[in-house]
């Protein structure tokens, strides 16, 4: 109320005017330098001796149009696979992280297995896991072996589950010991303390890095094409092979970026909100 009645002093009006001039100056400078950099880049690329060949084999609108429907159809498979794998990997990661916190001698094998799992699958390259799962498991000729799509998805889940388990564990360890002391002093058991006090705080805290890993998973979902299913990458590969033109890869790449944008946006928003909450609290 009083703010509206307050009339800035001579000095303050001078400061405001100065700041406004500075802002206008910064905006103009930024625009100018962006334009200069853009022009330089365009000249460098299009002026390159091989640009015409590259444009034909990577940026052909005609080829792009021809294979876009196939690639889009493949992308739909990626999207479905992403959703299912992300949910399962998050669940697996949380489960493993929780198992690693179990105490008592009875749980030693469980803890050891959970630890061994995160160590192994964080080190093992995803491509090798996909080959092992998609080609190795069917090789066993067991009855009821699922298809390569499911096996490829399983490879993604076990690999990302190991990463996400470590993120969850970092979150669990970041909860201050005084919170545990408060919970235990109320008579809550260790398990109740984990469930009601530690895990909810841990998950909130690691939401941004978890989402970031989901963005990474979004990209790696394309690797299941190695196992055979026709996803966006595979569809593009078929196009490349048929026309001896790389444009389908560019199309697939652009689509992957577009697919990632909303997820990245959500990640940034969650991160910002977490940062704001942290500076507002305490």
């Amino acid at each position, binding site marked *: 109320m009083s703010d509206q009645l307050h009339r800035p002093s001579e000095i303050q009006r001078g400061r405001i005017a100065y700041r406004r001039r500075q802002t206008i100056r910064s905006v103009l400078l930024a625009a100018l330098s962006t334009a200069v950099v853009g022009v330089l880049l365009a000249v460098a690329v299009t002026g390159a001796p091989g640009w015409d060949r590259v444009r034909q084999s990577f940026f052909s609108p005609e080829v792009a149009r021809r294979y876009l429907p196939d690639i889009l159809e493949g992308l739909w498979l990626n999207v479905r696979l992403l959703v299912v794998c992300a949910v399962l990997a998050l669940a697996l990661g949380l489960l493993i992280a929780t198992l690693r916190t179990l105490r008592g001698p009875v749980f030693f094998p469980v803890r050891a297995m959970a630890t061994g799992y995160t160590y192994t699958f964080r080190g093992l390259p995803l491509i090798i896991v996909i080959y092992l799962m998609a080609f190795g498991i069917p090789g066993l000729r067991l009855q009821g072996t699922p298809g390569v799509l499911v096996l490829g998805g399983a490879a993604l889940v076990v690999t990302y589950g190991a990463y996400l388990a470590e993120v969850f564990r970092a979150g669990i360890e970041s909860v201050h010991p005084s919170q545990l002391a408060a919970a235990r002093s*109320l008579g809550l058991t260790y398990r109740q303390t984990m469930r009601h006090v530690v895990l909810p*705080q841990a998950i909130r805290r690691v939401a941004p890095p978890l989402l970031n890993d989901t963005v990474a998973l979004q990209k790696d979902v394309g690797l299941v094409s190695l196992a055979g299913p026709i996803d966006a990458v595979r569809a593009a590969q078929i196009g490349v092979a048929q026309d001896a033109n790389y444009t389908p890869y560019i199309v697939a790449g652009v689509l992957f970026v577009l697919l990632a944008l909303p997820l990245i946006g959500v990640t940034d928003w969650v991160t910002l909100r977490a940062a704001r909450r942290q500076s507002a609290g305490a």
Partner: protein
Amino acid sequence: MLLSCENVRKTFGATVVLDDLSLAVDEHQVVALIGASGSGKSTLLRCVNLLTGIDDGTIRLDGEDITDPRVDPDRVRQRIGMVFQSYNLFPHMTVLRNITLAPERVHKRAAAEIRAQALEWLGRVGLADKADSYPDRLSGGQQQRVAIVRALVNSPRLLLLDEVTSALDPELVGEVLTMIRGLKDEGMTMVLATHEMGFARQVADRVVFLDGGRVLEEGPPEQVLGDPTQARTRQFLARIIEAGRL
């Protein structure tokens, strides 16, 4: 006798924090632990609540040896309330949920009954309108009052208060101390570690001066704070007076 510590010893590595310490607290008694930082006040409270184990001696609650390894610590803690220097409210829960969590999950009482009791308590300490707020929206004094209510709804036999006003701005100390004085009038048994000598004098039935993990001197507040027999106690109090805290 409600609580008795007998020859308790506690070490952290090479440091002896509690050294052959003995202390008895009767029901409805308020005992104030005073002493310099590092004299073992907080450690003693944590040992009584089994938040940390002891290295020798015995702690009895209602005659039961609670330091026996066969005793379930969760069951012991259900009978003891504890309030911490930095409140330790659960930041992801509302004030009301902070209070109702333990009665619901530990003591398995009916939700409606707990809620009514929690709201009544909040009303008594002037925080009825904060029931649905999150802790970070409350002042330190308000948070600490919620933390005390959170301990009290479990009807503890014994309440441990660990320097509960040390983190508070001076103008907020009063509201917490008033609440503790009210608890004394209701007959709550309390052991409190404190730097507030004036408050210890008002509320405590007995003041215990700890030095180097031992009870150096204990007695009625007028005697220990007014006419201490030990040179170390006099020295400690002189420094407190110098700092303007008595």
